[in-house]
């Protein structure tokens, strides 16, 4: 009997069609667009001017606040402009556009493929190094990693949880990473353990990736304190609260953070980026992105420089099919449709999903028949139908009482609803409004 979280969850069709495709290095684009806001928190401050020549890995925007992250040039070339550019949010936001010329790296970056096992830095230096490298949560939430590693006073981390679940259908970037970069990942996990001063790390992987589970299990034997645990396939197991529950049986209290129960969760992609930053001095300039879709000619996994336009990825995967209805940045459950395929890949882009026109339209909204399916699938134990009604009536203070802020927008309720109610839409708007109420109360 495989472990999983208890409350709610759904099992959408997995569709991991690109799982067998090894990671290919995408050729450099002619131009990259690097948004200044690729992470949760304050946008970074640009440090270059138009016409400047930059090298790959050079710091081009500085972290602006406690919760913020550095941004490095992902290519070498000349800064073309600092004008706002449309990103996957659908809005134009400040960005640095760089015309690519060659691939001239910062000399301090160690680009040799040699494995560097020995961890020489102290915990504080590791966190400093991670902050310098601009690493953020690569699972998609893009929370700055160094902030997560700085455990607040009075709290103690007891264990590190590594998220290799990849519960989103279609996406396979973490799967390929675990298969191809296993050793680097293990060292990355050990670095994170040292930074947090914890003796134990648990890697959770869903059982639909048996090759990754057995590969990492065999590797884990030679690294102390790392346990690899297969998990039953259930969405949204990649949510950090669900993953902690599945692996340890502990539950994060409502409104709390994983650190409240002594856990810190990091994605496998983040662990690899940490290895590269700490051992190889390489900032976060590239990531693995799955490009997939039922009608796409060659669904693939690419190692992509951040800032590459999505159109370049789709072209490399066989071009945009004629019957494309929408292009989603991220997975089908939590991803967001992009308004243009010229938007750049950012630190949080785990996949690009091309959906055919026939499947891209929302179904008309029916009438709630009170079947309570939404209640039974909600992994946070909320009552989506109730939040939906309250949202329609704009009763936001009551929504707060009904714990709308616990919602992580996994979309299980909308996925399961037989009447296709716009459950998540109203809940999401409610979260924004309740957030305003909470902020006002604090001030």
């Amino acid at each position, binding site marked *: 009997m495989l472990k999983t979280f208890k409350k709610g969850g759904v099992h959408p069709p997995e569709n991991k069609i690109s799982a067998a495709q090894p990671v290919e290095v995408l050729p450099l684009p002619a131009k990259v667009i690097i948004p200044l806001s690729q992470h949760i928190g304050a946008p970074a401050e640009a440090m270059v001017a138009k016409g400047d020549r930059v090298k790959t890995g050079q710091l081009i925007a500085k972290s602006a606040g406690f919760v913020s992250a550095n941004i490095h040039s992902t290519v070498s070339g000349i800064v073309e402009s600092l004008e706002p550019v449309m990103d996957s949010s659908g809005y134009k936001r400040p960005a640095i556009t760089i015309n690519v010329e060659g691939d001239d790296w910062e000399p301090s970056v160690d680009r040799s493929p040699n494995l560097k096992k020995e961890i020489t830095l102290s915990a504080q230096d590791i966190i400093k190094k991670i902050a310098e490298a601009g690493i953020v949560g690569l699972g998609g939430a893009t929370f700055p990693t160094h902030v997560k590693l700085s455990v607040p006073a009075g709290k103690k981390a007891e264990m590190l949880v590594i998220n290799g679940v990849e519960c989103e259908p279609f996406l396979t970037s973490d799967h390929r990473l675990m298969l191809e970069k296993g050793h680097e990942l293990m060292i990355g996990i050990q670095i994170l353990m040292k930074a947090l001063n914890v003796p134990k790390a648990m890697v959770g992987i869903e059982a639909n990736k048996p090759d990754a589970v057995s590969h990492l299990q065999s590797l884990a034997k030679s690294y102390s304190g790392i346990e690899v645990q297969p998990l039953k396939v259930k969405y949204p197991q990649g949510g950090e609260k669900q993953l902690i529950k599945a692996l340890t049986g502990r539950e994060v209290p409502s409104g709390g953070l994983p650190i409240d129960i002594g856990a810190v969760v990091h994605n496998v992609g983040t662990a690899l980026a940490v290895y590269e930053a700490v051992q190889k001095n390489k900032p976060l300039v590239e990531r693995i992105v799955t490009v997939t879709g039922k009608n796409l000619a060659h669904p693939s996994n690419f190692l992509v420089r951040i800032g590459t336009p999505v159109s370049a990825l789709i072209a490399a995967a066989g071009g945009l099919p004629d019957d494309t209805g929408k292009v989603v940045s991220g997975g089908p459950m939590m991803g*967001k449709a992009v308004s243009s395929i010229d938007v750049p890949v950012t630190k949080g882009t785990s996949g690009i999903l091309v959906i055919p026109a026939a499947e891209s339209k929302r179904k008309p909204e029916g009438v709630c028949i009170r079947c309570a399916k939404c209640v039974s699938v909600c992994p946070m134990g909320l009552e989506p139908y109730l939040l939906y009604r309250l949202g329609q009536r704009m009763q936001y203070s009551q929504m707060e009482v009904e714990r709308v802020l616990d919602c992580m927008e996994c979309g299980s309720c909308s996925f399961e609803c037989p009447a296709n109610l716009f459950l998540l839409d109203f809940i999401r*708007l409610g979260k924004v409004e309740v957030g305003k109420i909470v902020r006002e109360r604090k001030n």
Partner: protein
Amino acid sequence: MSSVLTTSILMLTILGVVLAVILYVVAQKFKVEEDPRIDEVEALLPGANCGGCGYPGCRGLADALVKADDISAIFCPVGGNETMRKVAAILGKAVEDKDPQIAVVRCSGSPQNRTRVVEYNGISSCKFASTLYSGDTGCQFGCLGLGDCVAVCKFDAIYIDPVSLLPVIDEEKCTACGACVKACPKLLIELRKKGPKGKRIFVSCMNTDKGGVARKYCSVACIGCFKCVKVCPYEAITLENNLAYIDANKCKLCRKCVEECPTDSILEVNFPPRKPKVEEQAQNAVTS
């Protein structure tokens, strides 16, 4: 038989008297002293409960009007100057006449002027759409056309034009209560001075992109060219962030800026049609 009847009547009578006394005492004890003028003032107010004055409904406004020493800062946009003068007469306080206002929509991005590049498929409401993307055209400032302003208008004064897909304000019905101003997530609606005979001139654009970018996606966008600023004899036009703004209090409605604007983003409303220029007249004479 008769004793049952008399006992019942007696008991009920006693009960009634006792309860009446209790009710009277309680009512006297917990009586709320309310200024009778609040009722009088409320009777004069329009009773729309639109909240345009900033108070919770007409009763709230009446209460505020009676309690405030100086009511010149309080205004009922629906009732207008006439109502405020009547209220002032009752309360013996001074009011100043305010210029009547009207809501104007500062976007002219009809499908003819800006092409749609994205198809939106979700809840038909601007506040939902604006959380997901900036709009279905390349302009991220313009009207989404999903009618949140129409839904909040209590006076039935806004409708979405089926051709331009933009909100149109009914001048007769608009009371300038400001509900639509608050409802628009793109902040496109502004309360402006209605002007003599409804004549007014305003920049119908909120695009702060640089001229080239703005023009690329919308043919009637303000491109921040400064031509209107230069031509205005009354210094009524300011230009900030590539966007011109006409101060309605300084504007003397000379219409020079309207002619000068290269992208037709300045609108004139309720003016008589212009006389054709001399050359054009000559041209017309030749062609006819």
